[in-house]
């Protein structure tokens, strides 16, 4: 598994995918946090990172599928999947290696945003006047969200040999999983089961972790979400039908 991980991980850097996605992520979050007046921390006047954690899921929605769209779709298209599958490797090792390589890029994109935290920490009127508990919680939420989106992306990549199709499917699924359930629960006829439907959505669990309370129910939700998508991916690969 580690061999697949390191191959894919270095592929991301050889093909510039990693630099560009991490770069764009940092530029966009930087703009929203410090430049655009509507969401800028400087204009907002409160020492908090809420705007980062509000905007990041939507950037992830596009960037993570861009990272993952290649991973299995290309192997299948080029026939190199046959090369991997006839080596002493289980399908699980292939899927997990690729999954963790994509997730590692997400983690690398998030680490530099700690600078934002340090900046806000230093800039507070009384230094250090920031709700660090909520920030830690939000980061954990964001990591879990990125992990889920990566699982969706790997799954979408296994469905097709075409990277564009994989990308589109992944963006749609990420969007739907994140905020689709919230919107559906607003339907008039579904009002009486609204809370059940929103609890399927990622947004609710993300918000709840962001408050700084790490509830096992939220953790189990995210982990089982990841496991489910990786399991489907493994099953699709095992079928060898494409």
């Amino acid at each position, binding site marked *: 598994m580690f061999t697949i991980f390191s191959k894919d991980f270095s592929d991301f850097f050889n093909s510039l995918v990693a630099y560009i996605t991490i770069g764009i992520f940092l530029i966009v979050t930087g703009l929203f946090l410090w430049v655009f007046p509507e969401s800028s921390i400087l204009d907002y006047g409160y020492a908090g990172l809420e705007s980062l954690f509000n905007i990041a899921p939507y950037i992830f929605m596009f960037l993570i599928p861009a990272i993952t769209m290649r991973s299995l779709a290309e192997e299948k298209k*080029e026939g190199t999947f046959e090369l991997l*599958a006839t080596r002493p490797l289980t399908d699980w090792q292939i899927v997990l290696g690729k999954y963790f390589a994509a997730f590692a890029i997400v983690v690398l994109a998030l680490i530099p945003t700690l600078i934002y935290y340090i900046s806000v920490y230093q800039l507070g009127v009384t230094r250090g006047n920031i709700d660090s508990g909520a920030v830690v919680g939000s980061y954990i939420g964001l990591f879990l969200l990125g992990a889920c989106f990566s699982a969706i992306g790997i799954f979408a990549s296994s469905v097709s040999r075409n990277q564009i199709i994989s990308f589109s499917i992944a963006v749609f699924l990420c969007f739907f999983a994140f905020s689709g359930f919230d919107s559906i629960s607003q339907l008039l006829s579904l009002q009486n089961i609204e809370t059940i439907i929103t609890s399927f959505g990622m947004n609710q669990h993300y918000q709840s972790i962001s408050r700084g309370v790490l509830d096992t129910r939220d953790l189990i939700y995210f982990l089982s979400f990841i496991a489910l998508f990786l399991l489907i991916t493994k099953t699709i690969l095992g079928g060898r039908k494409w």
Partner: protein
Amino acid sequence: MSIVVDNISKVYGQQMAVDHVSFKAEKGRILGFMGPNGAGKSTTMKILTCFIPQTSGAASVCGFDVTANPMDVRRNIGYLPEHNPLYLDMYVKEALGFISDLHAIEKKNQRIAEVIELTGLGEEQHKKISALSKGYRQRVGLAQAIIHDPAVLILDEPTTGLDPNQIIGIRQLIRDLGKSKTVIFSTHIMQEVEALCNDVVIINKGRLVANDSIEGLKEHFSAKSLEEIFVSLTNPVGENG
């Protein structure tokens, strides 16, 4: 017996790609696997390499069953797939390094140097695979197949698209490897089979139509050329005008 294929069938939807095929391959012998396009050669090879499961029947490689012990089978097989898929973005040594890592080979660098020497990749070893010509790519594919020194080699059309000199080179390599290993390779070129193989298996529309040594086959068909035998077995007179 290194390879035992016992009554194997593979059904794709409605189509019977491989229809109750059985044959055996022994160590130290080269087996030529022939048949018209679409006869089921690649499918049989994919089943032997544990890439796709068979619908019925059993196959084993070095005593390991392909369904029960796929990991042991894969450790003992060197496989060159049809169309020779490669990671074009990688450098030759990088690709070989990656494959040796998958097999957890000790003394990796030493083995890579050996394999480069064996396949005659010396001059091209610092290039990117995408920069190589078809013949050299084929050698990289072959190098990847033999890097873990497998007991069994399965080569799916290893010589297609090569120029005559390259074909001679690859044949010599296969001949040398065949001395100590079990080799199965598929081809459309009759001279190649005659020049290289000890045994021949011919399949047509998924069915086995011949399974014999070259001498045996010629004796049986009263000394006709291999080409004539092939045509008479796979395209009986009258079927195609």
